């Protein structure tokens, strides 16, 4: 899933200053699970923002809605069809993908981001979400039996732990597990530690964002125009 965090209220208030009629739009999937931009957070943001603007004497009309997904036309189109839109601005509480998909579908509206999109990862426990995939486009989890050194090693190393790994922790922070320590332990347990002795060649980063923005086109499943 995609993990995000709501922007600080002050930043949201600042970007919404020029506007009066505001729509705060929650998103019902990933950001609901990570408690950043779902229905509940949309309502909370609306309440906090109203209070703040009231204090500052700004005229305000805020409505809230929540789509199941702001990243798919199907849900956006349904939403547009069922609602009248005379807002000055939409504050999207979706991830960066949702904000942009909304923008392509509503090109004459101003849609601003209410969240900072952080990473692809998973909920470890209540209140903890962690990154574990960078979307590099060339998965190496087969080499490490399921622990990603690209996303989880602070230096994205491919050939084992650096000299800053101590007591299983990364040099960057004691809150970060050393991915290569975890990989070493996992491979040892599986009797496959010799995998770490093979030199991994330089990675092809062109399959990642470094090759430019990526689009996948599957001709076999595409619909021809008019079909």
């Amino acid at each position, binding site marked *: 899933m995609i993990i995000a965090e709501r922007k600080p209220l002050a930043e949201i208030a600042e970007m919404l200053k020029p506007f009066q009629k505001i729509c705060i739009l929650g998103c019902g999937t990933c950001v609901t699970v990570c408690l950043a931009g779902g229905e509940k957070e949309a309502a909370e943001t609306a309440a906090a923002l109203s209070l703040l603007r009231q204090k500052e004497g700004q005229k305000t009309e805020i409505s809230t809605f929540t789509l199941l997904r702001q990243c798919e036309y199907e849900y956006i189109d349904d939403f547009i069809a069922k609602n009248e839109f005379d807002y000055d601005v939409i504050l999207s509480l979706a991830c960066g993908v949702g904000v942009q998909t909304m923008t392509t579908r509503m090109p004459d509206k101003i849609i601003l981001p209410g969240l900072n999109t952080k990473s692809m990862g998973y909920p470890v426990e209540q209140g903890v979400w962690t990154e574990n995939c960078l979307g590099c486009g060339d998965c190496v989890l087969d080499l490490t039996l399921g622990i990603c050194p690209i996303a989880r090693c602070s230096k994205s*190393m*491919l*050939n084992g*732990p650096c000299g800053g790994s101590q007591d299983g922790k990364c040099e960057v922070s004691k809150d970060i597990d050393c991915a290569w*320590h975890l990989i*070493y332990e996992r491979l040892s347990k599986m009797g496959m*530690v010799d995998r770490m002795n093979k*030199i991994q060649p330089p990675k092809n980063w062109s399959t990642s964002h470094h090759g430019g923005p990526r689009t996948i086109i599957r001709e076999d499943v595409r619909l021809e125009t008019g079909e």
Partner: protein
Amino acid sequence: MKPESNLEKILTSGHFAVTGELGPPRSAYVDEIKHHADAMRKHVDSYNITDNQTAIVRTSSIGVAASLLQMGLEPNVQMTVRDRNRICLQSDLLGAVSFGVRNFLCLQGDHANFGNEPQSKNVNDLDSMQLIQALKNLRDEGVFISGEKLEHPLPRIFIGAVANPFADPFEYRHLRLAKKIEAGAQFIQTQCIFDMDRFEKWMEKVRELGLHKKTYIMGGVTPIKSIGAARYMQKNVAGMIVPEALIERIKGAKDRQKEGIKIAIETIQRLKEIEGIAGVHVMAIAWEEVVPEIVESAGLYPRPKVD
């Protein structure tokens, strides 16, 4: 091909090598570092020049290397993969070789979080292992990482890497060294040794695999200047072990600085006795003036001349 690097000549002819280390300044004023280099010119075989160490912006390692060569001194250019992608690393290598640098030390580099530009991008296009291999392929195969050929063969360079026996997982550290040797590391400089027991345990594993016969291992030695410096290394530098007993020993000494120097000399003397140790790398950054005394007292002076 004959070695062109003095360090390579010293090591291949069986002498116990001594290298020093210089940390470039946070300015383009290099007179002071040149002065430090000059003061130990008779005491070290080659000078490591750090590459923006602890991710703090400094004069480039290659820039200082140019100054050293003009002074008739031999640089060992440290190259981390933190700040440069493979285009820049290979290009900088060629540039440095073009004006006479022959020693290169490949490192990963401290994370940029530690430095004075914590908001920067960490490049890490290659890792340190891949950089070692890239340098070897440039020299031995005459090819870039892409597989394209160099237009002209590279002169003989001497390729180094680092090893940290004090980092974890300990059981993997000698295997990582084996991998670096396979990648092309001809000499190894270790992290500063304060925990000699752990170092010797690591060396046992190194010898079991015969790695000491496949590369030249130089033990890292740092004289402790103050209790504060020791505490800093103990608490804030990941992958370093500074035993409490060592700090207590310095604390109890009449002259703490003298004791720090004495410990460094003792460390070198122990290293000289360890099978498979080919030299020492003295890292006395910000305390360069004590290097001659340490080298002399450790019985490593005068330095051999090899042609």
